[in-house]
Every structure is written in structure tokens, then in C-alpha cells.
């Protein structure tokens, strides 16, 4: 089932959580709403579920207006950030809840309920915990029970609010892959809220980057990562180094470095900012034609697939560079050494230093 939000606006008192947001999620897709806290991503998710009512705008399920449809009738699966398991019910009863509260006509028989709950629990690999209570489970187990409970009513839409937020890094990794696989197995349209860019990029088919109640960019993980539409997206999806420069005609200048800037402003000189990710910078021991800046090696962290190098410029700025282990060994870098930084790719956005 496809989901569409049209011009949705929502305010809580003086705080505007969503400003005229429109979004389309295609059938069977898994979309991540990514943004910092307060960006409105959870509010959008809750409005889709029917737990909040938009001030303006509408929600469409499968092309039909569902804005006034009651939560109970939307048939969405919702996984809460803190799982919200029924603490007085066993794992089995938690999963069975959605089936037990169905109207008598639609309700499956006891035997069918039992069979379906068993099937769901084995799907989330927890059939051996059916008689436990939520307080006796670990965070990752609770998460999977919450998912099984949401799936019990066979929803066409699965909404997940920071599903892995409260878990430790390793469990999070496993559950992410598992969710990705699960989404492939069951035919459901998914929307996932997260503030973790890594999670969004890894799990989702498409990523919706949100900021201050607005959508900044919608695209595949590759698009948003490699072709960020705005400074915010660039900043939010990983580390960046910022360089100040200017644009004149079809040329961009960063210090002594001159670059082609084909879609540049035609007249005058404009202040611009150049964004470069650490892995798009290279370190040389000698100055070259494309050298952007010179600095002193301040810190080296060689633990990991890439070597993270911090350089201090004469202006007192810190530049983060990531180079390969081979390059690091070839250069033989030591702290305090002078080095030259050269960009492989630089993203230029108009505008001076931030206010």
C-alpha cells in the first residue's frame, strides 16, 4: 500500500513540528526519515499512524484520503521507540493482542491465533521465550517482540520509530540486517524514523532528510550521500571539512587554488563555502598544483580500515582527512610533520560564513 502525505503542517503550541511537508512512499518500499531531534520526523510518522492529527494537509493510503480515518481502522503496524510492550502480558499474549481485540466476526479462532503467534515468534526467532514477561527480556529481544506484535495483524504499512535507538552498537548492526531481510520477505510498505545516518543509508531504499520541520532532500542512499542537495544534508550525512572561498564567473577560488565552476554566477564575486568529506582529501608531503591548504599533523588514528588524520592549519582550523593504510605507510606520517592537503572533489554552496 502506498502512503502519501500532502502539505502536512503540525504545530504543538508555539513550536511548529512540520511545515507544509509532502512525501510519497511507494508500495513495498522501505523509506527512512532521517534528521536531528526536533526535525519533525517522529511527528510525521505519528501523523501517518493516526496518533496525531495534522493541523493542515492530508494523508492518503493507496490514493484514498485517510486523514479522518481512526487509528484502529488504519491497519498500520507501529513499533515504538521504547517498544511499549504490555508489561502485564507474556510475550505470547503481547503478540496475540492485535488478534484478540478484533471484532468477533473477523477474529480468528483460538487455534488459529495460537498458530499465527507461534509462526510470528519463530519469524523473529523468539519462540522459546513465549511465556516470559517483557521485564525478563533484553533490549534486542523486546524489540523483536514489538515487531512481531505489530506484524500480527498483517498490516500493509509498518512504521518504526527509532527502532534501534536504545540498543548497543553490535545488536543494532544485527537487527538492521535482519530487518532488511525481513522487509524483503514480507510484502509491506515501511517507514523508519532514525537520527542515525549510517542506519538510514544502510537499511532504506530511499532516505528522506528532514530539518526544522521541512524535507531537505529525498533520494536513494547513494544520491543523498554523494549528491547532497543542501549544506544541511552534506553536514548531516557524515563528517565534512568546510573551506571558505569565492566564485567569480565560471571560476571558484579557495586560497591559491583555482577551480572550474561551470554553473557559477555570471557577474561579480560571491562568497561561497566548499565542503569536502575526509575521504575526498589527500595528503602530500610536497606542495602541488592542486594543493588546497597546508597544515601540521596533529593527531593520527590508524585503528580501522582507514587512517584518520587531523591537521592543524596556521589559521587554527582543524582538518579531518581519511587515507588508506597503504598511503599512510608510504607517506610515513608522524605528529608535528608539515603536510599539504589536496581535494579530490569539492562541493560548493553559495553563501558566506555562517552567521
Amino acid at each position, binding site marked *: 500500500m502506498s502512503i502519501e502525505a500532502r502539505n502536512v503542517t503540525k504545530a504543538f503550541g508555539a513550536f511548529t513540528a512540520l511545515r507544509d511537508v509532502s512525501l510519497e512512499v511507494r508500495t513495498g518500499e522501505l523509506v527512512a526519515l532521517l534528521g536531528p531531534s526536533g526535525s519533525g520526523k517522529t511527528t510525521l510518522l505519528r501523523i501517518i499512524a493516526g496518533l496525531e492529527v495534522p493541523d493542515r494537509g492530508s494523508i492518503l493510503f493507496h490514493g484514498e484520503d485517510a486523514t479522518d480515518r481512526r*487509528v484502529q481502522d488504519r491497519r498500520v503496524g507501529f513499533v*515504538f521507540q521504547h517498544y511499549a510492550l*504490555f508489561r502485564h502480558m507474556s510475550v505470547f499474549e503481547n503478540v496475540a493482542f492485535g488478534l484478540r481485540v478484533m471484532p468477533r466476526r473477523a477474529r480468528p479462532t483460538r487455534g488459529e491465533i495460537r498458530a499465527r503467534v507461534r509462526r510470528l515468534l519463530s519469524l523473529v526467532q523468539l519462540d522459546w521465550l513465549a511465556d516470559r514477561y517483557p521485564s525478563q527480556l533484553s533490549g534486542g529481544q523486546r524489540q523483536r517482540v514489538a515487531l512481531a506484535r505489530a506484524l500480527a495483524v498483517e498490516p500493509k504499512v509498518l512504521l518504526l520509530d527509532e527502532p534501534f535507538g536504545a540498543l548497543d552498537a553490535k545488536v543494532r548492526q544485527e537487527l538492521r540486517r535482519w530487518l532488511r531481510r525481513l522487509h524483503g520477505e514480507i510484502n509491506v510498505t515501511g517507514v523508519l524514523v532514525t537520527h542515525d545516518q549510517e542506519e538510514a543509508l544502510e537499511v532504506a531504499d530511499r532516505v528522506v532528510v528532514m530539518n526544522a520541520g521541512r524535507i531537505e532532500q529525498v533520494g536513494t542512499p547513494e544520491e543523498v550521500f554523494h549528491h547532497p542537495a543542501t549544506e544541511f544534508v552534506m553536514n548531516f550525512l557524515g563528517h565534512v571539512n568546510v573551506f571558505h572561498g569565492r566564485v567569480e564567473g565560471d571560476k571558484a577560488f579557495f586560497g591559491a587554488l583555482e577551480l572550474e565552476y561551470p554553473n557559477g554566477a555570471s557577474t561579480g564575486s560571491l562568497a561561497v563555502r566548499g565542503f569536502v568529506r575526509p575521504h575526498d582529501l589527500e595528503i602530500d608531503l610536497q606542495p602541488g598544483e592542486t594543493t588546497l591548504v597546508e597544515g601540521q599533523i596533529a593527531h593520527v588514528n590508524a585503528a580501522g580500515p582507514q587512517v584518520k588524520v587531523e591537521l592543524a592549519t596556521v589559521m587554527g582550523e582543524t582538518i579531518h582527512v581519511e587515507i588508506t593504510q597503504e598511503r599512510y605507510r608510504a607517506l610515513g606520517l608522524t605528529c608535528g610533520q608539515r603536510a599539504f592537503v589536496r581535494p579530490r572533489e569539492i562541493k560548493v554552496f553559495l553563501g558566506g560564513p555562517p552567521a
Partner: protein
Amino acid sequence: MTSASISTLPRPPAQRATAEPALVRWLLTAVAIGFLALFLFLPLAAVFGQALERGLGAYVAALRDHDAWAAIRLTLITAAIVVPLNLVFGLAMAWAVAKFEFRGKSVLITLIDLPFAVSPVVSGLIYVLLFGLQGWFGPWLKAHDIQIIFAVPGIVLATLFVTCPLVARELIPLMQAQGTEEEEAAVVLGARGWQTFFRVTLPNIKWGLLYGVILCNARAMGEFGAVSVVSGHIRGLTNTMTLHVEILYNEYNFVGAFAVASLLTLLALLTLGAKSLVEWQTRRRPAESGSAAPDAAAMGPLTPVPLQPVSEKTRNEH
């Protein structure tokens, strides 16, 4: 020689650093026990001692007295009406305050505490002022031949007023700690309002609710001040147990007075027993307490309901 003797010295007990000398410990314990005996156990024993002073026969006879029996019946009837009403009111009130945001909520929370803040005598007088013969609705009530003051309805109303914060006060902190996520989860899964209430909300608060009901019942049966004002002290008709005790005592009928008083005391002991049982249950099943504040459910029942500080606290909170 010296070093050898030091190494064989017994190690001082581990708690030595934090404990007072034995004499101080014994003294303090003795003071505490003496205090308890003098002010709690002695009066308790005295009630039963006085009641049974002339033997078991006189005790039973005093309780089988027509007026005493009428007073017991009236007390039971009052409690039977007041407790269920307060149960419903308290639930509705706590539900509204804990699960919804609305204008005037802080005023409402302060108002719940009004019966605690005001003297019971004043609460009684309010009803006389409203429904008495010279009161606001007095002429109308008289014209329609409805009697409230100096009759059972007045007693029920006064008791209702005095006991109405008990259940709500018990539930509000518990329900606030539990939040609304479980209810939301239930609704998303397709549960209707009543299903959500009976399957999710009620099971989560049942021990707190039971505790509130026990307190409410104890207060309803033991209330004196407010009831005294509206009752009119008509023997065999509008005397509750507490009022009956007073009348008998004033008539120097000590056996009668203490016999009825012993029933009230038994009720108090029963209440304490039930209260301990509920507290034990809440501690035994921590799964039912609020996940946001795991101690909330255990703390709630343990804390006696303070009079003034509660309203002050709520004013600061909201």
C-alpha cells in the same frame, strides 16, 4: 614478639566503622520500642480491654443492641455507596489528569485536594448551608419532600466529599509514570476504547487502585467530623458507628462505647493487613510498575497521603 601478636589479633567486625557503640544502639532501640508501646500498642489493648471489661456476654450484648446494630448498618451502607462512586470518580479523574493535556489541568489537580485541605467540620457545614432547611436549596427540597440534611443522603454526601481525593491521588502518580505508550500501542493494534481500558490500562494499575479503595473504605467508615455536622444524631436512624461511639461514651456506657470502637479498631487492623498484602504484591511483581520510574508503584502505596504538601507539590509541578 609484637609483630606476631598483632598478626594474630582478631579482625574487628566489618560494620564497626559505621556502627555506634552498643550502649547507644540499645538505648535508641529501647526508646523507639517504648514509644511504640506507649502510644500505639497500649491504646489498642486498652480499647479491647475496656470493651471486654464485663465479660464476653456484655460485649456481645452491647453489639446486639438495636441502636448499635443500626449504626453498624448505616456505616456499611454509606461505605457501600461511597466507595464504588469514588472508585469510578478517582479512575476518571486520574485518567484525565495522567493521560491528557488540557487547559485548566493544574486548577483541577489543586481542586482534588480541597477535601484534604479543608477541615471536615467545614465540609459538613457546606452541605448544611446548601441543603439545610434555611439553606439555598432548603425551601425547594422541603416543597418536594426530600430530606438530605439529618438523613442518610446527607451522610453519604459528606462522606463522599471527604474521601473523594483518595483513589485519584493514589492513581495519578502511578499513571503518569506509566505514560501513554502502551495505550497507543493497543489502539494502533485495533483495540477500541473499552478494550484498551480493560485489557491494558486497568491491569497496569490494579494494585494501586486496590490500595486507593482500601484507604477510601477506611476513611469512609471512620469519618467523624463532617458526618457529625450533617447527621443530626438521631439514634437508630442517622448515627454511624463513630457517632454512636461518641454518644455512648458521653452517657458513661463505656462497655457499649468500646465494644463499637473495637469493631472500628478491627477494621483498622484489617485495613493495615490488606494494605501490607497489596504492598507485598506490588513489590513481588515489579513488571507492573511504571517502566519510566521503576519505583513509582512501590513508592506510591508506601507514602501516606500528606495533607498540605500534596497541593503545594502539584502547584509547583504544573
